[in-house]
């Protein structure tokens, strides 16, 4: 009777497989409810000392964009910042959403680390970010020219994330 030995073995392999996959998932990454939806309607003033704020209409002007949620008090944001500067240098439209930041600290951040953002909206009370489904900083969105959220990345971007997630999403967004 082979079944007596094969069946428990199969059950064990299936269970171990399922649990193994579970181990590789990060429970802090919450599936995005905003992917595929249109960006929320909003209009934010610029951060202190800048002239261009960010509004939903800026994200519906036909060009695919990257929207980065950042704050000067956020350490991982500092890690990913050079990558955003690099993206902007490649001619990609990158916008900033400044989450719950002191205005002068935000402008100081952009002055010292380099400003990759075409437009930067100051979300002082964090309400617009909540409309975007943001639950931590940094988060990065890829938005199509019509204003549809195509991709969302939670946490700091790595060069691999840019190459494997953000750039392909931009290509999809442009299609």
């Amino acid at each position, binding site marked *: 009777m082979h079944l007596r030995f094969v069946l428990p073995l199969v059950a064990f392999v299936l269970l171990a497989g399922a649990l193994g996959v579970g181990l590789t998932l990060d*429970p*802090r990454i*919450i*599936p*995005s*409810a*905003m992917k595929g939806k249109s960006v929320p309607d909003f209009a934010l003033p610029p951060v202190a000392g800048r002239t261009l704020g960010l509004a939903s209409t800026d994200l519906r002007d036909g060009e695919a964009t990257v929207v980065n949620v950042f704050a000067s008090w956020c350490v991982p944001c500092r890690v990913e910042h050079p990558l955003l500067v690099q993206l902007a240098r490649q001619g990609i439209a990158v916008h900033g959403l400044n989450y*719950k930041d002191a205005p002068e600290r935000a402008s100081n951040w952009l002055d010292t680390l380099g400003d990759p953002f075409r437009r930067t909206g100051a979300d002082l*009370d*964090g*309400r617009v970010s*909540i*409309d*975007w*489904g943001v*639950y*931590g900083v940094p988060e990065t969105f890829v938005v199509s020219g019509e204003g549809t959220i195509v991709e969302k990345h939670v946490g700091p971007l790595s060069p691999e994330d840019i190459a494997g997630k953000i750039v392909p999403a931009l290509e999809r967004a442009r299609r």
Partner: protein
Amino acid sequence: MRPLLAALALMAIMTGAAPLGAIGVDVPLADPVLEHRARTVHKLLRCLVCQNQSIDDSNADLARDLRQIVRERIQAGDSDQEAIAFVVARYGDWVLLDPPFKATTWALWLGPPVVLLLAGLGVGIYLRRRRPLVPPSPLSAAEAARLKRIVGAGRHPP
């Protein structure tokens, strides 16, 4: 003088002399009925930062913002369901501590009973098969002799 001031300051802090309207302090709704409804909704929503607490329990900044948003929605005339839907639209079913039964959550809801059923079935089959597999073995000659000695041949029923 300094230690005295420090002690007074500490006492002020410990007695909860928080300034009114300070950032980070919940502002309950004036109407106790509405506030009670808001609190009920808070208990149904999962905190995105602490994950296994409701936003009612959580001290996270975002949880406080969401509490305030729920209060505003309810103050503005939303039903409890509408206030919940407002948060779900932004963060998905993930924020519900009692997730709905639908295609994406079938595994979640049906998984445990199915596993229990299969396990029960397996145990049942195993036990049913086991009984005839272990027939009582006949006594050896030495055992039979010992039994006879203990019980006594004469007291056996005929």
